[in-house]
């Protein structure tokens, strides 16, 4: 494979990952081109890029999923490569192929690899053949309720329904008894169809109390591959990851070596090219099973970067240029501990209902061991049309205890007003014994999360401070606004409040 020039890259994504990729490109002296839907004209990734072009209306299907427009835009502006980020078209083999046919480098694996891994069933067979342990499940796609019921009976309940084209935790559902199967199948197929354009689903054994362990790999496309150790992503809700950490508190050195070796074998088996993640389920008995391979950058890649001292976006670009693997396995080491907290626009007190709105206050944490990957800024309107991930807070510590303490400190320093968000959830999680001792499983939130407990009353002095502050805030607001014309309470005494002590309090000297 010869070396290829990459001087301008179109980033076919939005939000924090587009910003992250653009930052990486700028650091490499590569021009970054953003694309945006009509509602994203003022999104952070657009403002951060060197160039930006509109690609259609708000719905993703008419913009970020329009491969034809993305390719036309890339060609028109003279880009020589496309970075797909995660989600959207990142695991769409047809798009990757179309890029190649248009003379654009698709920064990711070959289309055949995406196709293979995108087809969960084909991937299973290939892994079985390569000696990687896989979980018992259906070998073919399902659309028919009766066939599904038969398959589920054979595997044994509980079973997991998964969109064949899914990924990133989207399009999965646990079914515990046959009575629920048909409805679950219908809904999963519906979501799969609207999210991935393919409604095929399949079934597999559902491991109770599982842990989700994944391994970051890099492949040179010729059978050479290295791993960058594991991430544990067992804090999930609706199969969507919420908190990830690296290393995993669940692996012994021996188990780590075996699971990382299995990941390298997976990548090598398919001549993997670029960055990918091999996901495993770890059972309470410490069996691990291949779950799937994500053929793209993961949301949680920063924890690997912090622990191994690497840069995965740079590694992707270098590999895409044909420069081969940037790291040798023997040079890669884990140092310290990193945790990622995904900041979602969703309200944990209202069953994690998605939230939108203008970011009215945004103070991000600072200091040692703190990284913020963000797709928002003060004044930005969070749109309803896309993933509710606003930002990621990533902390690093010398050990797990320090990483947790630092996470708590940083979360407390984080002020985010406007849309509701899940920072309170993260602070809650960091007080749970199951999280603190590292024995949590993917059932953690479902089993442990109790909105009542979560809404512990404030300590008395915090409450007194809140009430005092709110009353002073309202007093000052009214004073600054002045008595409105015709306002009933704009009486004689009220005028005395204007330009008074409350105004003088501002940055009092």
């Amino acid at each position: 494979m010869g070396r290829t020039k990459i001087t301008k890259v179109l980033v076919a994504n939005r939000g924090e990952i587009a910003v992250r990729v653009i930052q990486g490109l700028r650091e490499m002296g590569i021009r970054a081109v953003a694309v945006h839907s009509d509602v994203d004209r003022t999104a952070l990734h657009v403002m951060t890029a060197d160039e930006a072009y509109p690609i259609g209306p708000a719905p993703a299907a008419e913009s970020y999923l329009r491969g034809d427009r993305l390719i036309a835009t890339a060609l028109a502006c003279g880009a020589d490569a496309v970075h797909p980020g995660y989600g959207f078209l990142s695991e769409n083999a047809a798009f990757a192929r179309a890029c190649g046919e248009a003379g654009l480098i698709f920064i990711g694996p070959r289309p055949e690899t995406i196709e293979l891994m995108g087809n969960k069933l084909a991937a299973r067979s290939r892994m079985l053949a390569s000696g990687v342990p896989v979980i018992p499940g259906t070998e073919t796609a399902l659309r028919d309720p009766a066939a599904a019921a038969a398959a589920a009976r054979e595997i044994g309940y509980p079973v997991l329904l998964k969109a064949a084209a899914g990924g990133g935790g989207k399009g999965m559902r646990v079914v515990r008894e046959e009575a629920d199967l048909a409805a679950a199948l219908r809904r999963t197929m519906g979501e799969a169809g609207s999210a991935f354009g393919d409604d095929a689903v399949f079934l597999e054994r559902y491991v109770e109390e599982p842990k989700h362990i994944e391994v970051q790999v890099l492949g040179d496309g010729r059978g050479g591959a290295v791993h960058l150790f594991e991430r544990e992503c067992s804090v999930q809700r609706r199969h969507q990851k919420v908190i990830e950490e690296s290393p995993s508190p669940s692996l012994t050195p021996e188990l780590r070596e075996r699971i990382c070796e299995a990941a390298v074998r997976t990548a090598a088996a398919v001549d993997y090219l670029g960055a990918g993640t091999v996901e495993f389920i770890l059972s309470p008995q410490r069996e691990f099973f291949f779950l799937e391979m994500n053929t793209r950058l993961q949301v949680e890649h920063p924890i690997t970067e912090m622990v191994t001292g690497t840069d995965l976006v740079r590694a992707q670009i270098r590999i895409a240029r044909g420069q081969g693997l940037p790291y040798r396995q023997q040079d890669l080491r884990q140092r310290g501990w990193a945790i990622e907290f995904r900041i979602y626009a969703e309200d944990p007190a209202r069953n994690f209902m998605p939230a939108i709105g203008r970011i009215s206050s945004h103070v991000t944490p600072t200091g040692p061991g703190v990284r913020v990957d963000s797709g928002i800024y003060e004044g930005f309107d969070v749109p309803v049309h896309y993933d509710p991930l606003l930002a990621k807070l990533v902390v690093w510590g010398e050990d797990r205890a320090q990483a947790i303490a630092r996470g708590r400190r940083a979360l407390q320093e984080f002020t985010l007003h406007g849309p509701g968000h899940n920072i309170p959830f993260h602070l809650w999680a960091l007080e749970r014994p199951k999280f603190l001792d590292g024995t949590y499983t993917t059932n953690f939130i479902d089993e442990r999360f109790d909105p009542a407990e979560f809404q512990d009353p404030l300590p008395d002095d915090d409450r007194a401070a809140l009430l005092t502050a709110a009353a002073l805030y309202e007093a000052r607001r009214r004073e600054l606004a002045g008595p409105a014309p015709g306002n009933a309470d704009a009486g004689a005494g009220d005028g005395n409040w204007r330009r008074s002590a409350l105004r003088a309090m501002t940055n009092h000297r």
Partner: protein
Amino acid sequence: MWMKKRYVLRHGGEQFTAVVARDADGRLAVQIDDGELREVDACFVQNGRALSLRVDGRMHLIDLSPRGGRDGHGALEATVNGRYLELTVMDELHALALASVAEAAGSGTVRAEIPGLVVALQVEAGRRVAAGEPLLVLEAMKMQNEIAAPVAGTVAEVAVRVGQSVNAGDVLLVIEPEAGG
């Protein structure tokens, strides 16, 4: 001689009163409920969006913003020493006026909390529903959200159809609450 003004605050299902007082020299004091009137060391910071408060040497940082959307009247978001929560504050007269309006409004009106797309309707007008029973599915941010009945009663009106986009605050349907429900 203190000049006083009284505010009504709601937080965590409870209601409180706070009296803000100032004297001729501009000193400030606050009284919560029937506690004592205490002088406070408070500074607005961050261009007026946060308050730094000192009580007996202990520091409190309270970020405050008006809550967006239709419920913005007196509704605040706050981050208190790192903890995010919501509350409402209004002066006493205003609180009294609002209370009477609230009494008149029914609690069976189901509104969209966020903009989204109606992808399924599970009830029709005239149907009796139990509290918590699913009414419809709203797709927003690629998630399907089941909207449940806030009260038991009879569906008086379904204001949307499948495939319709709705904005935050739009009425989805109205339930005539059951007597004693």
